[in-house]
């Protein structure tokens, strides 16, 4: 990420997936690297359960308008999330979807976004680490692998601040898994 550039990330999925925490971890990592951030989410206190959205803007200088307007990355972890909050992307946007639980929607194509990265995130996590916890961290790994928006070390530190000791190892493996998935994909070159 260029020092002056504004980096915008939007993540969407279902309530329990920890996407908001994911965005906070990434925000803290960016702060550790001296960046400015604004993190926000749809706040569902009076709209139970369902779909969630987390947003993060990272910049090396003051962030005036705090919300995502033209995301660099859109990560969608459920169909419903993509339906509700998948708008507002552009040719600039790298879209990540979890192909293990989602069907690729028609509206995502070369015209509407920069790239579509369809990865079987949930199923890979379950297969490889035999757990569903850490889905948000795998996603952070994917985003990190894709953008390198912060250094991996900082990201690990930020994760460490938020997870209990006994889960640290699992989470580090989840992060690695995410990054690996991007690498593998990059090698095959298959995206959409």
């Amino acid at each position, binding site marked *: 990420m260029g020092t002056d550039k504004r980096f915008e990330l939007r993540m969407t999925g279902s309530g329990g997936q920890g996407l908001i925490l994911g965005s906070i971890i990434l925000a803290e990592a960016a702060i550790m690297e001296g960046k400015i951030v604004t993190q926000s989410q749809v706040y569902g*206190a*009076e*709209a*139970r*359960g*369902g779909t969630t959205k987390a947003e993060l803007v990272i910049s090396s200088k003051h962030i005036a308008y705090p919300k995502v307007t033209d995301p660099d990355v859109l990560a969608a972890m459920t169909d419903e999330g993509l339906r509700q909050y998948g708008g507002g992307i552009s040719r600039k946007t790298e879209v990540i979807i979890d192909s293990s639980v989602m069907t690729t929607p028609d509206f995502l194509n070369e015209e509407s976004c920069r790239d579509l990265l369809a990865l079987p995130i949930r199923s890979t996590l379950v297969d490889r680490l035999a757990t569903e916890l850490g889905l948000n961290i795998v996603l952070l790994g994917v985003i990190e692998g894709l953008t390198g928006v912060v250094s991996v070390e900082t990201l690990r530190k930020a994760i460490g601040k938020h997870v209990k000791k006994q889960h640290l190892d699992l989470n580090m493996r989840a992060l690695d898994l995410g990054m690996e998935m991007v690498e593998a994909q990059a090698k095959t070159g298959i995206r959409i």
Partner: protein
Amino acid sequence: MRLDFLRSERLPNIWCPGCGNGIVLRALLEAISQLQLDPDKVVLVSGIGCSSRAPAYTAFDNVHTLHGRAIPTATGIKLANPDLSVIVLTGDGDCSAIGGNHLIHAARRDVDITVVVFNNYNYGMTGGQASPLTPAASITTTTPSGNMDRPFDLVNLATGAGATYVARSGIYFTKHLVDHLRKAISHRGFSLVDAVAQCPTYYGRFNRKGSAGQMITSQKDWMVLKNVADKKNPEELAGKVVIGEFVNIIGARQADIDAAKEQS
């Protein structure tokens, strides 16, 4: 339960998986079905809270008012049109915190409405804060080290305020619940049913009450029928919640007024 009492096009409801509200709502619709009330003459009035969303899933006239204000609104409706069966669906916070004054005054006036309290021991809607019915020592988002306040006993409160029909039931005991809802609605005068429900998302999770299924079946363990409880001593009842009918007085208000007139 008459399925046409449900406004199916608005389902699924917004409640979390395992939320007790749907069970209370179903029991209420069953009670109304059994009473064969004219659906044109039933109005459900609620305040604000997860539970207060219940009326809007029914096919009846329904009024979703302000937080705590269902009871005075219902009072206005009932007195404007006494032909209606006016039923208030409210949460423990809605009716006993911000709405506490209206509750006791409706009980005192013996206005002919029925108040069904969806009692899940906390404020679900705003994220699991303590309510005046949150048990002592419980964890909520505003009692992080355990609730230092004592809760109201809603039955005692309503009774102390002069309610003429007071009952309590739990969502595990659906037949019991339906029976008491039916009696409450038929009661001429103010009636209240404390329907102990559950909020697995907040109260259940914070206090390690297990899954929604465990929460509901556990009512068998910590609830005691009133006729059973009446034979037990206080020690045996420690930690138990008694369910059943506590007050059922007919014509109390008129009798009181007549008596007073005679005196003076």
